[in-house]
């Protein structure tokens, strides 16, 4: 692996960039590993990287049924924020935001993390009260969040329509300045490259077809389309397909998988400086460095694995966007797509041990998993290395659905997540 630096870029440029080596080898599965991660998205690759980097467990395989970052890692709207209401969530998501901060340097790979600010619009009295409550709760937890008047919001994001005559008038906004966006693909590629450099095998086109358990019930390994792979430790980070994998181990999970759609416009000159979310009208938007407006829609109403959704969901979102940003009414949309998100009853993730010895899970991130990528990877690695959860992810256990200690961000976050 060649380290990226100004010097290496310059030297390779002299040769017309023809002599770059592959970023990581396309590994074939070995018969056994110390640990296996199922799912080669950002979360899973992050877990493999931290297992190798922090805990010295380098005999690790990441197995991915498709290609690296081809699932939800490549399908999200790349928003990063940590302004969650409850203490447990604030700690969990802020852990990730802190890791985002130094990630490009740590991985020697530009993740393009841009702290352009995430602004949530308040359109009615309920929004104002709820957002102010969020701001105070966040600040008590050391998470930055501040209240803006409509004029301040307009100054921060000039395309905003703050006319009092608007169908959904802007009464103010909550701004998290550390929030922003990152380039989603580079996060997966950066972790894959850094993990492979430490000895992790990254195995693509290898779907898990079964999970083998011993007489004592503990994990022995996984059956895959490329043969049996033995391991005493298996971490599942398979997003929308988690229920399917868990049923192979005989576990029923409190998850439902829904299609979540996103869309991008034709590229235009820089016009939109931050991320704007409006829970009341179900819209959020940012502009990518390529110039496309990146727009997130809502989930479809029914359970599905089809990775596509209905057009009326997109229409609903665009109607809201046009109402708040009249200048975009004549924009044309370039592409829409869908990803399958696994949603828990309380809209908080499940990250920890399972009733099966040696089987760990990172799932249930629902519609908002990208922001947590480094944090989820780090905490899954900790849980797998120590066979116990870190105090940050301890509340996000599976038992909470039995003992009732839910972390009910569904109510707290209103809609978008």
């Amino acid at each position: 692996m060649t380290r990226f630096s100004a010097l290496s870029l310059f030297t390779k440029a002299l040769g017309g960039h023809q002599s770059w080596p592959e970023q990581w080898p396309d590994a074939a599965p070995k018969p056994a590993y110390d640990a296996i991660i199922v799912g080669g998205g950002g979360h899973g690759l992050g877990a493999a990287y931290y297992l190798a980097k922090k805990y010295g467990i380098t005999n690790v395989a990441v197995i991915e049924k498709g290609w690296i970052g081809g699932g939800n890692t490549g399908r999200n709207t790349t928003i990063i924020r940590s302004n969650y209401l409850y203490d447990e969530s604030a700690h969990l998501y802020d852990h990730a935001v802190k890791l985002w901060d130094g990630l490009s340097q740590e991985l020697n790979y530009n993740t393009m993390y841009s702290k352009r600010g995430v602004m949530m619009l308040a359109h009615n009295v309920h929004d104002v009260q709820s957002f102010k409550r969020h701001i105070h709760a966040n600040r008590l937890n050391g998470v930055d969040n501040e209240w803006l008047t409509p004029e301040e919001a307009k100054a921060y994001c000039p395309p905003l329509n703050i006319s009092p005559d608007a169908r959904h008038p802007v009464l103010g906004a909550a701004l998290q300045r550390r929030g922003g966006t990152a380039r989603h693909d580079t996060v997966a590629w950066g972790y894959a490259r850094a993990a492979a450099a430490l000895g992790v095998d990254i195995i693509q086109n290898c779907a898990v077809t079964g999970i083998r358990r011993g007489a004592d019930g503990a994990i022995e390994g996984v059956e895959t389309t490329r043969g049996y792979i033995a391991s005493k430790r298996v971490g599942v980070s398979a997003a929308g397909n988690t229920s399917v994998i868990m049923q192979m181990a005989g576990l029923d999970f409190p998850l439902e998988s829904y299609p979540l759609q996103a869309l991008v416009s034709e590229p235009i000159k820089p016009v939109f400086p931050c991320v704007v979310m409006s829970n009341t009208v179900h819209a959020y938007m940012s502009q990518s460095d390529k110039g496309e407006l990146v727009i997130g829609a809502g989930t479809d109403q029914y359970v599905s694995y089809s990775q596509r959704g209905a057009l009326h969901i997109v229409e609903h979102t665009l109607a809201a966007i046009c109402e708040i940003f009249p200048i975009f009414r004549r924009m044309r949309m370039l592409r829409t797509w869908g990803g399958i998100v696994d949603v828990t009853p309380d809209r908080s993730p499940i990250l920890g041990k399972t009733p099966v010895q040696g089987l760990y899970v990172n799932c249930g991130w629902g519609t908002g998993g990208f922001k947590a990528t480094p944090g989820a990877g780090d905490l899954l690695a900790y849980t797998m290395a120590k066979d116990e959860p870190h105090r940050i992810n301890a509340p996000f256990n599976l038992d909470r659905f039995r003992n009732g200690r839910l972390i009910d961000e569904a109510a707290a976050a209103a809609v978008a997540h």
Partner: protein
Amino acid sequence: MILIHCPYCDEKRAELEFAYAGEAHIARPLDPSALSDEEWETYLFIRNNPRGRHHERWRHAHGCGRFFNAVRDTVTDKFETTYKAGEPRK
């Protein structure tokens, strides 16, 4: 948008007229106070979430307003059948 056959109206209508209502055939406990925590967890939270045939409830919200059950493939989103509430699992 998917088209859904309402077994009461006996018509195929657009999804916009319907509201999804979750997994079907989850029976409400007859004696709730006798349930263990584990049984409550299963009733309230555990869902089948299969990749393939899924039994689910829909409501013809902007039509007859009635609940019915359906079998749909979650990979293709294609409906296999819909049937009236109270009829046995198909």
